[in-house]
């Protein structure tokens, strides 16, 4: 039976939600698994993160090194490749760090790689069955992963609900085993995202537009609706990439996290990166011309219409 490891993401000494999610995922791979948490970092924040991990995992491996103070994917990969035994299954959150570090780790460990897993059906022999999504969530697939030589798996945040179970694990200091951590990529600093003139995180009602708005000129249609509703305009990422609205209006994992009462998703397909920015269970209204758009699976109310016709008609009816 392959040993299972979980990479623990933490910030300011506190483990992230993914720590509990990976513990649940490990059990789905093998109910009898005794997964080991790996926590990398430096100094006192690392120690408190290890304490947090020990509440979820029976074994915690601590890797303390000044070069690991910031999670630079290049450095963390080097350390993990050194300490993880061949043939192991390594679980990593599918976030911007996991995307950076994990694919290369699978090569260094000569292990299979499967990314952005949303479900796990368990091992049969060395074959692990998992669920993924393709085509921006429009298709689901079962994949089989040959774990005979180990596997590196990244798991979509939020896909594995913590089961509330706890542990009182012991921390083992593995810092001496990490070897040389020199890397050809050096972390310099984090530049915080600019704050814009509106704060979409404070709005009760958001009229949010996606690529379905089709053209810069059509943004005004959403602005008119928002005005009529007393709402604020937000958007999905492609609208910001196209420079039709400023970055501070973007909802999602690489944008803002919003907690409105009502969220009007207009021409938004419903990618997990977008939905990752929606918190507090708002009432979601989705208008999309494609009846199969994934957004309809998470919305409360769905309407199949062309937003370029629907929004002006709604504005007029409300009396904008």
């Amino acid at each position: 039976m392959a040993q299972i490891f979980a990479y623990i993401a933490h910030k300011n000494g506190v483990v992230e939600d993914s720590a509990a999610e990976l513990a649940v995922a490990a059990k789905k791979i093998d109910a009898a698994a005794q997964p080991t948490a790996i926590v990398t970092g430096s100094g006192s924040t690392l120690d408190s993160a290890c304490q947090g991990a020990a509440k979820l995992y029976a074994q915690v491996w601590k890797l303390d090194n000044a070069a690991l103070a910031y999670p630079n994917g290049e450095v963390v990969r080097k350390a993990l490749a050194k300490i993880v035994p061949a043939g192991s299954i390594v679980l990593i959150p599918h976030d911007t760090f996991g995307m950076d570090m994990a694919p290369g780790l699978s090569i260094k460990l000569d292990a299979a790689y499967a990314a952005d897993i949303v479900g796990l059906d368990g091992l049969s022999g060395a074959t692990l069955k998992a669920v993924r999504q393709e085509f921006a969530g429009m298709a689901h697939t079962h994949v089989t992963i040959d774990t005979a030589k180990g596997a590196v798996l990244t798991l979509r945040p939020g896909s594995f609900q913590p089961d509330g179970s706890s542990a009182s694990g012991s921390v083992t200091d593995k810092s001496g085993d990490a070897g040389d951590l020199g890397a050809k990529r050096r972390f310099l600093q984090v530049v915080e995202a600019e704050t814009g003139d509106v704060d979409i995180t404070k709005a009760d009602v958001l009229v949010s537009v996606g690529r379905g708005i089709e053209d810069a000129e059509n943004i005004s249609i959403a602005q008119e609706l928002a005005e009529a509703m007393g709402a604020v305009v937000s958007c999905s990422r492609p609208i910001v990439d196209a420079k039709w609205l400023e970055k501070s209006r973007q909802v999602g994992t690489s944008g803002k996290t919003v907690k409105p009462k009502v969220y009007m998703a207009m021409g938004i397909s419903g990618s997990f990166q977008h939905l990752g920015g929606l918190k507090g269970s708002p009432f979601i209204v989705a208008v999309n011309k494609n009846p199969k758009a994934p957004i309809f699976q998470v919305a409360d109310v769905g309407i199949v219409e062309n937003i370029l016709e629907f929004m002006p008609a709604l504005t007029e009816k409300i009396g904008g």
Partner: protein
Amino acid sequence: MEILVCVKRVPDTAENEITIKGDGTDIQRDDLVYSVNEWDNYATEEAIQIRDKVGGAVTVVTVGDSEAEEILRRQMAMGADKGILLADDAFEGSDGRGIASILKAEILKGKYDLILTGAQADDGAAQVGGMLAAMLDWPYASLVNKIEIDGKKLKIGREIEGGNQEMNEIELPCVLSIQTGINEPRYVGIRGIRKVASVEIPSHGAGDLGIAAGSVGAAAARVKRADYFTPVMGKGAEMLEGSMEEKIDKLIELLKAKGGLK
């Protein structure tokens, strides 16, 4: 600077409704509109801008079948200098590792300073760039949204959670995966495509690349797609039916009840 951009031909999700075949083995591919992976357009644009600043050449490469040639031409119409098609029956059914090994073999035949990939493609795996870098033993950075050239080094920004930017220094040669929004990819018109329509695009197979049969392709894949399926979802949305008028009336009622309208 010699820059290689890896590009993938993918079904355009904005143009297509993706439907699963009755037996679940695949999606319906017959009537799909294909295009260049969105992220790869940003990568190509970035490569062209770097070349225009510091000189050198931009090569675009894809692992695919003969139909994938069209996306190479499209990127050449954008301004890439050269295209290379990597095609062989032996490549079919490769997993991400297989694709990365094929690309690595081509890279070792050339002399590149910088390899750009998209951050992710239609499978959403975001795997090929990182694997490629590890295979080459070159440094890697993903989700890059800013590149500044500084001699034998680059100063790069990585987009991280919350839209914050993680600044790094990285040595050349290196592999970078490019995030959308780094630039504004130029528009390609019919005339541009016509200009490169007759340019010869070399095609390399397993033999040319010295890739052993069985080391890539379906046989070597450790990750295999078992089937496509439609998941059993929660309750899903309450779909409003009727004329547009009727839908609007019903919606206004609901919005009033939920605090979306005063």
